[in-house]
């Protein structure tokens, strides 16, 4: 059989045509240019992933990405001024703030001096080559979204947290997309956490409703031994946006790492986590919650590589699906032969509120060690009628009874958040979604 070269879609052809000019204009020294070219070649060889590519079986990018959008320009003064009219979901949070607009770091509106933390413009670092040795080595996978970000990344931020530093406030990275014309945005955040440090990282991705923009962001986190990290990501992209995101982690021994991704708004989103255990006795907890309606689509994909012994991983994903929405959970836990005493538990739960909603659950365990405790579960169903009756028999009207049950369902993931304000914000987002559904 001869190799079949698929027809290029217009979006693929346009992306390929755009790269030579983009490479010249995007920041980067010779090493970075080589990285961009190598990533671009990986993308060009396979194109956008589609339903016959196992990892993208349920999220067909070739069908979803209809056109290649122009890269967003660096924000000018007028764009920055327009941000005053954009609500910050975490306005109430006492945090050190870092602002990224249309994929570009905005130094003038970011914290500059934080004890134990250094912050640099990734765009500048790509040109100088300073402080980006780990770039592309943490989030590593043969993945189209990741390759496209590596090829087209415009900027972002490099954050370094010193050994044993315990920043008093959370670090809050807010990424905003602006404008009424759709653009493509490729931000990247590179975070290194020193040994023994303890940090809370909050991330918001937001943009305007009604604009079919595309964001493909990558966050890379390298956590040193005995550090403690809590990462919370709020996906508040606009209702016509496509949001692809990749979180790559490289964890040292005795690291406690927690991450949660929360989605209610974008038309199509995929959040993928690639986690590598580089030390023993790691505690890894990754979770997600998505509340979807209409024709929304949200994909959570995990690849957890237990490459060292005594690792513990907990995964909990919650989908609430109304209308004609689609939820996807793909979780793969690999336990390498050396990774004895691994303790992994993965759970995906979905509640379908409509006959036309769809959930695709694909949990996978690949275990090559013999002394491990690993389990996974996936549930999918309607709200429990008996519970609903119990609540209604106490006087709660049906919409309120359902809202109470759904809030509790999502709350099981949200209660993993340690920061009270952050948890309050996501609980309020949940309530708003439930309220909108109840008055429908």
């Amino acid at each position, binding site marked *: 059989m001869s190799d079949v070269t698929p027809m290029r879609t217009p979006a693929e052809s346009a992306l390929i045509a755009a790269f030579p000019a983009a490479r010249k204009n995007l920041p980067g020294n010779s090493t970075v240019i080589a990285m961009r070219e190598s990533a671009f070649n990986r993308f060009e060889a396979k194109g956008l992933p589609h339903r016959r590519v196992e990892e993208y079986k349920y999220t067909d990018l070739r069908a979803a990405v209809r056109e290649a959008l122009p890269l967003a320009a660096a924000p000018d003064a007028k764009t920055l001024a327009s941000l005053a009219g954009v609500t910050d979901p975490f306005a109430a949070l006492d945090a050190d703030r870092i602002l990224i607009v249309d994929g570009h770091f905005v130094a003038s509106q970011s914290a500059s001096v934080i004890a134990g933390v250094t912050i640099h413009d990734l765009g500048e670092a790509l040109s100088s080559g300073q402080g980006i040795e780990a770039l592309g080595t943490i989030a590593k996978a043969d993945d189209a979204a990741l390759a496209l970000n590596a090829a087209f990344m415009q900027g972002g931020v490099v954050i370094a947290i010193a050994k044993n530093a315990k920043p008093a406030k959370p670090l809050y990275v807010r990424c905003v997309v602006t404008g009424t014309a759709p653009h493509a945005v490729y931000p990247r955040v590179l975070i290194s956490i020193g040994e023994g440090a303890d940090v809370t990282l909050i991330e918001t991705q937001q943009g305007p409703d009604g604009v079919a923009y595309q964001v493909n962001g990558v966050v890379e986190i390298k956590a040193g031994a005995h550090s403690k990290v809590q990462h919370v990501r709020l996906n508040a992209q606009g209702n016509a946006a496509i949001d692809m995101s990749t979180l790559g982690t490289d964890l040292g021994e005795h690291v406690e790492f927690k991450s949660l991704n929360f989605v209610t708004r974008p038309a199509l989103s995929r959040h993928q986590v690639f986690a590598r255990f580089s030390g023993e006795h790691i505690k890894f907890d990754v979770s997600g919650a998505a509340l979807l309606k209409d024709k929304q689509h949200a994909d959570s994909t995990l690849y957890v590589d237990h490459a060292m012994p005594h690792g513990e991983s907990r995964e909990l994903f919650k989908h609430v699906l109304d209308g004609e929405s689609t939820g996807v959970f793909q979780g793969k836990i690999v336990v390498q032969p050396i990774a004895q005493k691994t303790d992994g538990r993965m759970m995906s739960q979905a509640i379908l509120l409509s006959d036309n909603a769809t959930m695709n659950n694909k949990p996978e365990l690949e275990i090559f060690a013999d002394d491990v405790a690993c389990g996974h579960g996936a549930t999918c169903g309607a709200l429990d*009628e*008996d*519970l609903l*009756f*119990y*609540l*209604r*028999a*106490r*006087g*709660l*009207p*049906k919409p*309120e*009874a359902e809202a*109470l*049950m759904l*809030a*509790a*369902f999502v*709350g*099981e993931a949200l209660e993993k958040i340690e920061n009270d304000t952050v948890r309050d914000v996501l609980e309020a987002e949940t309530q708003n979604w439930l309220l909108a559904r109840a008055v429908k």
Partner: protein
Amino acid sequence: MLEIRNLHVSIEDKKILNGLNLTVHDGEVAAIMGPNGSGKSTLSYVIAGKEDYEILDGEILLDGENVLEMEPDARAAAGIFLAFQYPLEIPGVATMTFLKAAMQAQRKARGEVELSTAEFMKRVRDGANQLGIPQDMLKRGLNVGFSGGEKKRMEILQMALLEPKFCILDETDSGLDIDALKVVSEGVNRLRGKDRSFLVITHYQRLLNYIVPDTVHVMAHGQVVKSGGKELALELEANGYADYKTLAA
């Protein structure tokens, strides 16, 4: 208070209630006794409004109003309360949150002003103390990890706080030891009054030593086959249900 006329009910094509008639007057405590499968729990669910059942014929009137037309939450707001035989666990919903949501929803449905937080807290605290429910239990998920006795006490606390006028106790004695039975019965007895009626469903006469009924009704084959005073319960305890199993057939 409550009048059930010629009630015929089936579930999944299986006939459970066959022309049941029952009247409970204001302030009356009526006990329903009967063997397994006689339709006692079905009766309680149908009065409270569970949707699984098909009402083939008949009426249930609460103060003259046919409740069969009403949603379960509307029935609750109208004053019907069902203490479940097996109270359900609701993980993630703190008991306190649930109590507040239920009380405020009923007040709202009746057009009453919402309780202040202070007043709500006071009522819950007082009610919990009377039933020996520790405060920290109120912070836990509703009924999650509660023992059988704790769940039943929680049902009675809900009943006390919601102040219904027609209370159904569905085998409230099942799974209770003697001490818990006393606490729960005392909780019920405190709520007795001329404007509140009870339908006490039980297999055994034991509960009726603590909650002394005004009337006792024997159910078999989906009908009330005999009615009498509290002495009827003692008679049943002595002779069993054998006589009644054939009566309605």
